[in-house]
């Protein structure tokens, strides 16, 4: 079994810093030592066992969709909470541009999947969207992760026209990653080549952030006891 630690995927410590800001130092220390456990995004997919083992094109696309939901919600929330308004003009342009791109990605993948599209999970960014510092740091880690996810699956898709479409996303996400790194003051290109990552590896990283929230129960069936 491949054991993945947060440090292996968080080259610049961006994600760890963001998690530290969001959850406190003890949380970050725990994460830096612990093996990262997974199952969150794959759990969201809730695919039948057979479909998941086949890892067909649609299940790959659905995982992409779950990840695009995560990204789109992340940027949208930062904008809606006013965090982006508190950034410099250059940073705000970057954040708004990436947010609009990620929402466009969600829209098109959802339309391609139609009824097979997974539903948007609940997210809890735990403060990572609420200050410009934690937001930009998390964005760097998230964009790098997206590139690794996409290149990790490009050669597993059978349909050639879907591969072609995926490459239009890969190049865009790679530019997002470069722009995010520049905004944060990191080296724009981390390494000579990007490492591909499997679903399980990406899933473990997402699990380490606690960004996937548990489902809320807002509807009940007991007799009301309101004043009437």
């Amino acid at each position: 079994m491949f054991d993945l630690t947060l440090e292996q995927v968080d080259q610049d410590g961006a994600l760890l810093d963001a998690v530290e800001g969001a959850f406190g130092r003890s949380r970050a220390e725990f994460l830096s030592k612990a093996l990262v456990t997974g199952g969150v995004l794959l759990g969201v997919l809730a695919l039948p066992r057979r479909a998941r083992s086949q890892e067909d094109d649609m299940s790959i696309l659905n995982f992409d969709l779950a990840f695009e939901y995560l990204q789109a919600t992340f940027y949208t929330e930062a904008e809606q909470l006013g965090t982006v308004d508190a950034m410099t003009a250059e940073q705000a342009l970057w954040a708004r541009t990436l947010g609009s791109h990620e929402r466009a990605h969600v829209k098109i993948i959802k339309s391609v999947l139609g009824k097979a599209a997974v539903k948007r999970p609940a997210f809890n960014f735990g403060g990572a969207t609420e200050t410009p510092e934690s937001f930009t740091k998390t964005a760097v880690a998230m964009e790098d992760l997206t590139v690794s996810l996409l290149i990790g699956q490009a050669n597993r898709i059978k349909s050639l026209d879907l591969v072609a479409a995926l490459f239009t996303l890969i190049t865009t996400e790679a530019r997002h990653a470069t722009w995010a790194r520049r905004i944060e003051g990191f080296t724009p290109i981390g390494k000579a080549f990007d490492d591909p990552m499997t679903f399980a590896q990406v899933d473990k990283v997402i699990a380490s952030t606690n960004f996937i929230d548990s489902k809320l129960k807002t509807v009940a069936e007991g007799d009301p006891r309101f004043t009437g």
Partner: protein
Amino acid sequence: MRGTVLVIVLLAIGSVAGAAVAFDFDKPPLRPASRSGALLPEPVEPAFTPGRPRPLANRGFLFHWASVRQRVSARTIPTEDAPTVGYLQTMTPEGTTNVVSVLKRDTASDGDLWVKVRLAALPNGTTGWVPRDALGGYGTVRTQLIVDLDGMTARLLRNGRTIFKADVGVGTSAYPTPTGTFYIRNKLRRYSSPFYGPLAFGTSARSEVLTDWPAGGFVGIHGTNQPELIPGPISHGCIRLSNADILELGRLMPVGTSVTIK
């Protein structure tokens, strides 16, 4: 020398002929890539292309809410030393996840994030600060319910525009419906009591008179088995709608919706 040239010419002709025979006409057509004559396949048409990116819609009618993830004290100012104004539970008396309306956020001097929330507590209108990590993820709604007690009507707005309007029953003078700004906490359905009609919303508003009512005297918005009494001052503080209207409201009004009673 002449023989060598002949062999080369024959080999060249043979290889061109062989290439022509081996050419697969099912493959994408080739096109010249440069003046040198090299041939490359046409690019594959992508299965999809994302549409034009769009900026976010305006935030003018956006309301935030959050779930309560751990029992926590709400304080007057964003610091652990400040006086407590109330406590937040993780669940409501109805067994749903407790949610609070989010009003404001602040970063304390030690860097911790705090959130100002509206409490479902007496006196109505109580607000307090809780640490960010006591709450779950943020939810957003663009809906606002406005209840006019004098006119005995309810209007639901989405993005500031009325999308629903109905006559309502409101509290009597002895058991008045409280006024102020509240929010929708939960939705109840498939219960057995016909008194509440087919659907009931729980709000953060509480009766200021029926303080010993079971489960805390929360004000609901619900249907009825006495539709002939609507509109009118008929309730113990709840807002009653006809069953058709409450079902329509159930389709349009999400949990977290802001409620203004005036």
